């Protein structure tokens, strides 16, 4: 498995996105899925290879500290695979005018490319470029549903996103100013001398805020509920499920390699707790499913932030488990919410008309809460056991927050289940619910969430088997020195030269 | 084994006869207080024989009859658990607490029987009777706790033996004065006479539970009343007055224990149900708890 294939993972979707309009109309619909299938195959191959030993690709032959480096360890490979698969499942198959569909499909392909790039890129500037690319394409997709509400929400999202990117850029420049390099491995090597001071921490915080916009970090996630509520469910699923995880992954990698300091972890922990509390409690009062799912995803990402704040491989393992679990559950819920949008009252008695949809919703709710046989429980168990192992009281407080917010989450999720399995709405709002096929799920949504459900159940049954690879991935990702050794063969000479 | 069977028959008979004379004593006391001559010596017997000799009786169903059978049968069983001079029955196999529960079965049986009479007076009477039972059973149980803690066992035979060991000095009343007073007050409430007879209020609910009891049903209840008087006073005597060294003292103590409350009873009007609760939960309860505290420390 020679390293050059890594570049394909990013280049292929990008190429396909721009060449899409030129392809004859007949083949045009097949280009996207085909490309994604190839990327998925590549991803699977990369994952097999990187499990034993991470792969490095210096683009264009320039030696690491100068040129662009692609570093693929098992976590990155897994996320590439995830990007390809989830984008394929959430692919805009049709239902629109053809030129509008072209635009959507190409934007999605660009987004896929950007996400793949984010996971594999080894240096900060590259990360920033791909992040900007992902941000812009998500603006385009979010406004895709052409309703006024979507336009306004996306506009607010654009303001926040760009401000965030600005802050990230300032942070990156600060780092470059202090350390003289942007390559992650080199930074990891130089960080102890140059970046472990208040200025370095300030740079980290700025990058955290910048990337946090996309990862729905507490201070900067006010855009999320509106965008997810108004955008197409497919787009919201993509953004909430996939893209936010990648931003989170980058922050985690930065935390592990460059800033393994307690202050940084503490910041992440506090923001994660606030995110979880605000997300879950806001969802408790939500009266409309999409907004509720939006707030619930903010809460879940808060939990992921808390998880990554735990030092050592335990933290990374918990973070990965929660991220992957949310990656599977949230898009499925958004797909279900497509036809069930709007106020909860419309859902009265929905279970009678679409029993499978309601059963899937209940299954995902159970897994989100962490009812044992389902993988959600193992994720929560890892998170809590990680938190309990820490001597610091702040971690115990975080554990308490996780427990309390889970109860709140259970209440609002099962309030929806209760409404669905309750009796039909009578009288005046009866007309509201059964407007034609309002309550029946379209085939595509059911198919999509069915696949996710199958994934979830497979993970539940094979939990013991998945535990080992997860552990290995966590140790591999949290081992900073190995990263440096792998990317920069003779560190001794280079550090001298760079001074 | 054989002597238990004999005692099973003899003890209730003895209890019934003593109970009958207690009823007579009660009516005589009432008469003397009201400056009347009072009933002849065997009046309770005449009443019971007349009731059983009734030619026509109206019954409201099988349960109405079984209620009376349970009432009388329950007390017959309870008598065998009460040690009397010379006969211990099955007192060693069932302690004080079991006796308190076995005496609840007759009232439950009566309640079921009256229930089937489908007479609102009866139902109201039973509701009040059960409330009164709730009232006086709580201090009674406190006293049982105190006594059994003091004697170290709730087996009546040992309780009596402990008291008779040292003559009057080791009687319950001398050792646990507060509990004895509380016990007497509770006994007074248990007998269901004047101030505590809200559930038999003749003018208001036509003798409550007994409203549809005629002939042998009422006869059964008169027999139960005799047993009730005997059992209550016998339990008190066994706990506080050293049980029966011989029959003469035993009977004297029994009549004394019943005479004291009865002499006060007929000058009182009648408490309402909530006032019965108030009185019985205030004085005997406080005395009982204080007595128990004293006994334990």
């Amino acid at each position, binding site marked *: 498995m020679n390293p050059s294939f890594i570049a394909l993972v990013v280049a292929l979707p990008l190429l396909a996105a721009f060449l899409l309009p030129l392809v004859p109309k007949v083949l045009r619909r097949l280009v996207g899925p085909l490309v994604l299938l190839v990327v998925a195959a590549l991803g699977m191959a990369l994952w097999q290879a990187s499990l034993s030993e991470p792969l490095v690709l210096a683009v264009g032959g320039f030696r690491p500290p100068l040129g662009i480096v692609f570093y693929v360890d098992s976590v990155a490979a897994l996320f590439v695979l995830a990007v390809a698969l989830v984008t394929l499942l959430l692919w805009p198959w049709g239902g629109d005018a053809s030129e509008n569909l072209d635009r959507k499909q190409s934007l999605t392909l660009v987004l896929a490319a950007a996400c793949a790039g984010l996971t594999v890129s080894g240096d900060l500037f590259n990360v920033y470029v791909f992040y900007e690319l992902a941000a812009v394409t998500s603006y385009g997709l979010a406004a895709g549903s052409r309703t006024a509400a979507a336009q306004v929400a996306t506009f607010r999202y654009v303001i926040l996103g760009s401000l965030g990117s600005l802050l990230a850029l300032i942070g990156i420049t600060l780092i470059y100013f202090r350390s003289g390099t942007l390559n992650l491995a080199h930074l990891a090597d130089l960080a102890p001398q140059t970046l472990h001071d208040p200025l370095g921490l300030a740079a980290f915080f700025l990058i955290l805020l910048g990337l946090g916009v996309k990862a729905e970090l507490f201070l900067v996630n006010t855009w999320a509920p509106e965008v997810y509520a108004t955008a197409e469910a497919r787009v919201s699923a993509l953004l909430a499920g996939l893209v936010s995880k990648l931003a989170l992954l980058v922050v985690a990698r930065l935390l592990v390699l460059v800033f393994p300091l307690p202050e940084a972890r503490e910041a992440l922990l506090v923001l994660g707790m606030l995110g979880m509390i605000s997300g879950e409690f806001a969802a408790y009062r939500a009266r409309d499913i999409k907004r509720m799912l939006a707030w619930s995803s903010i809460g879940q990402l808060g939990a992921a932030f808390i998880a990554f704040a735990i030092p050592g491989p335990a933290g990374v393992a918990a973070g990965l488990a929660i991220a992957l679990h949310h990656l599977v559950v949230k898009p499925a819920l958004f797909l279900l919410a497509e036809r069930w949008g709007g106020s909860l009252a419309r859902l009265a008695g929905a279970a009678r008309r679409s029993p499978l949809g309601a059963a899937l919703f209940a299954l995902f709710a159970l897994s989100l809460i962490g009812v044992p046989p389902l993988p959600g429980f193992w994720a929560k168990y890892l998170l809590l056991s990680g938190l309990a192992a820490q001597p610091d009281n702040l971690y115990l407080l975080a554990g308490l927050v996780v427990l309390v917010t889970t109860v709140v989450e259970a209440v609002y999720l099962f309030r929806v289940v209760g409404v669905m399995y309750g009796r039909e709405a009578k009288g005046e709002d009866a007309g509201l619910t059964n407007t034609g096929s309002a309550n029946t799920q379209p085939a595509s949504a059911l198919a999509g969430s069915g696949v996710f459900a199958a994934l979830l159940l497979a993970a539940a049954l094979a939990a013991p088997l998945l535990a080992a690879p997860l552990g290995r991935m966590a140790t591999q990702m949290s081992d900073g020195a190995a990263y440096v050794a792998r990317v920069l063969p003779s560190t001794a000479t280079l550090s001298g030269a760079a001074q | 084994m054989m002597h238990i069977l004999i005692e099973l028959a003899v003890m209730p008979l003895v209890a019934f006869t003593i109970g009958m004379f207690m009823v007579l004593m009660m009516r005589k006391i009432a008469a003397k207080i009201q400056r009347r001559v009072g009933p002849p010596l065997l009046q309770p017997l005449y009443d019971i024989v007349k009731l059983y000799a009734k030619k026509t009786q109206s019954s409201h169903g099988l349960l109405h009859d079984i209620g009376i*059978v349970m009432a009388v049968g329950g007390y017959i069983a309870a008598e065998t658990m009460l040690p009397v001079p010379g006969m211990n029955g099955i007192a060693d196999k069932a302690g004080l607490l079991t006796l308190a529960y076995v005496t609840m079965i007759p009232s439950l049986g009566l*309640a079921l029987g009256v229930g089937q009479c489908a007479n609102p007076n009866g139902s109201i009477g039973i509701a009040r009777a059960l409330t009164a039972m709730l009232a006086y059973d709580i201090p009674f149980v406190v006293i049982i706790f105190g006594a*059994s803690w003091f004697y170290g066992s709730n087996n009546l035979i040992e309780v009596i033996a402990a008291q008779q060991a040292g003559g009057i000095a080791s009687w319950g009343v001398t050792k646990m004065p507060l509990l004895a007073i509380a016990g007497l007050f509770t006994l007074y409430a248990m007998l269901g006479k004047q101030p505590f007879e809200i559930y038999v209020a003749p003018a208001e609910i036509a003798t409550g539970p007994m409203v549809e009891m005629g002939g042998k049903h009422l006869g059964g209840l008169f027999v139960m009343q005799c047993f009730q008087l005997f059992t209550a006073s016998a339990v008190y005597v066994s706990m506080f007055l050293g049980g029966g060294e011989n029959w003469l003292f035993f009977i004297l103590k029994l009549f004394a224990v019943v005479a004291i409350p009865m002499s006060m009873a007929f000058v009182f009007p009648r408490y309402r149900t909530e006032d019965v609760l108030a009185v019985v939960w205030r004085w005997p309860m406080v005395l009982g708890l204080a007595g128990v505290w004293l006994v334990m420390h």
Partner: protein
Amino acid sequence: MNALDLLLSLSALMLLAAFLFGQTRVYPWLAGILFTGQLVLLAGSDLPMAAGVGLEIFGQQVGWQLDGFGRYFALITIGAALASNVYMGGEWGERYQADGHSLRWLHAALAGNVLAMLLLLSSKDLIAFFIGWELTSWAGFLLMAQGGERALRAALRYVPYAMGGAMAVLGGLVLTLSWTGTLDLLELSRVMSTLGNGQLALLLALFAIGFSIKMGLLPFHLWQAPAYAEAAGPGTAFLGAISARMGLFALGILLVKLMTLSRVADLAFIDGLFTARDLLAWVAALTIVLPTFTALKQNDARYLLAWHGIGQGGYMLLGIVMGDATGSAGGLLHVFNYATYQAALVLAVFAVMHRTGTADLNSLGGLVTRMPLTFLVMLLGIIGLAGLPPMNGFVSKWLVYRSLMVEGRPLLFLMTVIGTLGTILSVYKLIHNTFLGQLRAEHEHIREAPWSMTVPMLALVILAFVTGVAPGLALSWVAEAQAALGLPVLAYTLGGIESPRGSLDMLWIVGVLFAGFGIGALLFYGAGGRSKRVHQLDNYAGGHFLSADVRYHYSDHFYAGLMHRIGPLYRGSFTWLESAVASATDLAASLMQAWYRQAVPALTLLVAAVLGLGWMVWR
């Protein structure tokens, strides 16, 4: 495939079968056979039944093993499930299906509950325990949610309680893992008692809160009455009989096996004056009294019995907390006793509902002449519930009383007796308003409940009577449970217990009682003259001519006198507490939502950035 694997796979098979063809006529028979098979398997195999199935995940061994304590509860679970299954298979099931409910889901819920409880009872370590605990909660939720709109609402009210309890237990589990390094129950029983007082107190608090929520101890008991009352008929019987007792099983393991009662007694609030063990005892005592007197005021038979379910739980916990041989034997025996007569009572109430259509105590009356068998079941049931001699309820309550008397706890003893008297009053109200008094005109032609209902009820009540007359039969299982748990084992005989300080021999007591009844009957039927049955309108009413359309049955506000005295004490403070917590969550939620509706997000971003920087730089 050893015994426990067979047991678990059998119940898993039943869950699948119930889900697939639960609504057919064949399934109840199959389920009956399977349940009896499980019972025989359980009773027959020797202990401890180790299970082959197990998994190793994240460095923890997760396995299943059934010991004496678990088996005692498992027997009761499967017994209760068998009784409700027979009840469901008969005419009740047909009527339930005719009313539009799904019998398949009810059978699936019951089978799911049994499977979950078996998993919980046979857990070898805390993770398996937690898996079983959560599955039992959610299976319970599924069983409660059957049977209509009010049932669903009551079940939804249970969700926050269940999740709160589960999260407390999970928190405790995780802390135990970090402090002791192991999760296996056997090792924990050695290691946990060596923890410091502070750590032990936190663990006790977390676990005790989690377990007492399911058991319905005092502050967390509000969900249980509506949830158990509104569930479908046999569901209520099963839930009331055993579902809440899983909390007791967990508390038993926690207090006795893991932490050992002596260490629990060391955790003192005011240096030795009021220890954690006293706190548990007093919570149990209050749980006996308050729900029982709430049951007294209920006007619906199902709610009355559900409230009593909570009350009787207090006896069981009090017995175990006492810890001596008689007390713990009484507490554990009460689990079995209560399961038998409670299931019978609930099935009887539903038989009445099946025939008359309502369980409202103010619109029934006089059914004894029309449903005599159901009346007999309810009569023996209430004698058991009230704890009077011939029935088994008396034996277990007597054991608890005796241990309180020997241990010298007067106030606790007083509370239990107040609870018992309250029970006697409220059960008489139940049987009087339903079966005694004036038979309504519209109920004159109803018939006795069908065989499919009367047989399980009678079987349960006869079982209760037999174990009442010869308590030794049940005490053998209890002794085995005590040994498995590490409690001092009770020396029992067939009739009760022998001890100089006051013994109990039910064979003699019940024998003498029935001899007394015989003599009474002889006196009544022999000495008395002929008596004639009269119509219910041939009644004394102060000279007034009674007529069938006038309703003179005294049922509403039954204990008016008592209520005048203790009426003001019903302040509903717990309901106020629950609504306070609910409104606090609402307030927090609206605050959080306000954060997301802010007008200018960019401004907050900048302010946040400045604050963050400040925090990072000047830390």
